[in-house]
């Protein structure tokens, strides 16, 4: 997949509003592979809605979203499964980890269907993030900041052309935020993938190609 185009897209609930000041809603925006995008937003402007539309979770919008020129509104669940396994990876704002599994099991449950990383590569990422000792800890015994790092590692355990990061560093300090940036940049570059980061203030310190206000 090479590009995502949003053509006159607007969430249903904003459709009747006349005072929308946005670089994305009701505009024509194209997101291209290989580039980095920062989407800044204040609360309640539909940031998570945008991620849900792009990831096929929700369809309550007007306008068209096109993947390589193809309208996604008709995609069936099997197609979305395919996209979620190899085209778009996401770090959810609420992470969507499984609390009763360990950190490593949370990674394996994904990596086992995509067969992307070896066990050693996974352990190396844990170490790089400074949570190498948490491999076998249950997720619900870890802090949110630690969980965010596990969720990112899981997001990297698949091929992708677009990486969606929904407030990826909200609970990270600057050091860890920089570590995350380095890993994200490295992994995205290796796949020639686009980075789409959303933020409500604090954002990863990347030299973004495009900055958009939602």
């Amino acid at each position: 997949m090479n590009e995502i185009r949003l053509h006159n897209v607007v969430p249903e609930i904003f459709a009747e509003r006349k005072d929308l000041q946005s670089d994305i809603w009701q505009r024509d925006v194209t997101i291209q592979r290989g580039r980095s995008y920062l989407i800044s937003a204040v609360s309640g402007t539909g940031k998570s809605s945008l991620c849900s539309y792009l990831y096929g979770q929700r369809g309550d919008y007007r306008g068209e979203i096109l993947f390589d020129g193809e309208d996604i509104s008709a995609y069936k669940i099997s197609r979305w499964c395919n996209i979620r396994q190899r085209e778009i990876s996401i770090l959810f704002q609420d992470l969507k980890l499984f609390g009763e599994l360990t950190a490593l099991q949370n990674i394996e449950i994904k990596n086992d269907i995509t067969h992307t990383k070896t066990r050693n590569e996974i352990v190396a990422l844990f170490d790089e993030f400074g949570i190498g000792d948490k491999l076998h800890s249950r997720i619900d015994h870890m802090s949110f900041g630690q969980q965010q790092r596990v969720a990112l590692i899981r997001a990297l355990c698949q091929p992708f052309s677009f990486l969606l990061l929904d407030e990826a560093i909200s609970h990270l300090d600057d050091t860890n935020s920089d570590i995350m940036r380095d890993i994200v940049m490295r992994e995205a570059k290796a796949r020639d993938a686009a980075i789409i980061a959303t933020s409500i203030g604090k954002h990863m310190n990347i030299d973004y190609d495009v900055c958009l206000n939602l």
Partner: protein
Amino acid sequence: MPKSVILIWQLLRKHISIFELAIFFVANLIGMTVILAGVQLYSDIRPLLNGEQTLIGSDYLVITHPVKRVGINSESFSLEDIEDMEHQEFIDAVGAFSASQFEVNGSIMFNGRKLSTMLFFESIPDEFIDVETDEWRFEDGAKVIPIILPRNYLNLYNFGFSATQQLPQITEEMIKSVNLGINLRGKEHSDDFTGRIVGFSDRLNTILVPDAFMSWANSYYADAEESRPTRLILKVADPTNPALSDYLEEHNYVIENKPAESSKALFILKVCIAIIICIGVLFSLLSIIILTLSIYLLLQKNITKLENLVLIGYTPSRVAMPYNLITLVLNLSILAVSLVIIFLTQDLYMEQLSAIAGYQIATSPSMTIIVGVLFTALIIAFNFLIINRKIRNISRKR
């Protein structure tokens, strides 16, 4: 096994209620066992009343007019009568008995003495004969007449006569090897033939010769004038059909080979088995409702995890797998346990049934197994359907 399968199982087994599954297991086991017991009982008892090894009654009925007075019973069946019967949908085929219209003398050498007796022959179309043999044919000019005797005759001798007179019992094979002297006389002809017994019939209570021989002999030894049959054989799909008995009663025909009790017994058996099977089906339906509710509840309790699995790229069918597996294992074990129960109880009653019948009843589990497998497949398919529908529903875009 792939790691993901173990991990999904670890995630989704939470909330599985052993108690609910146990209720389903027991309820469906009862239902399945009752249904299959009904089927097995039916296939075990049916041959006793109606089937290949006929004890009483059969799918073939022999009918006559009632004997009204001593003397010559002249009431016969007209062509119209026969045609009318052939048009009834509960009668598959009609065959007429032809009787010999000439003198028949049979003789046998016994202890150096010649014993002879007057005989008579009858014939019916070959399709109504229940003896399979290559020897059942007659060609013009042949000197050997194949004969079929009722098995009753042999039984009468073996179990009645010989036992009381200290005479040896005879087997069917021994009789088949004996040649009978047959003398036919009529229209100034008198010829000797050899009679050979080629088989024994459970269905037909008469001395049978091939139709081809009978029509030749009747024209050669008697005046060729077509005689009207006084006995008919009917092939019917269901001898218990009330329409059939109404029809026979209306025309004042008498069934010769069929005690009324057997059809009543068969009818009552069918009703009983139908009731048993209905109860079994009811049990199974209730148990399926329990399982369905249980699975729905289980899926509902795990809904967030199921959603998340689909969101990280799992296909709905992969997510459904553990649930499908549970129902598969449950239903297959129910089938297996229920078959074991049936075959164990079958041993208990088969002995008594065989004692009543007087011979070892050949029993076959195939019908029961087929019904069990089909029913189980149906339940499994239904379970899969609701599980997969529910999971697809969860996975759908909102």
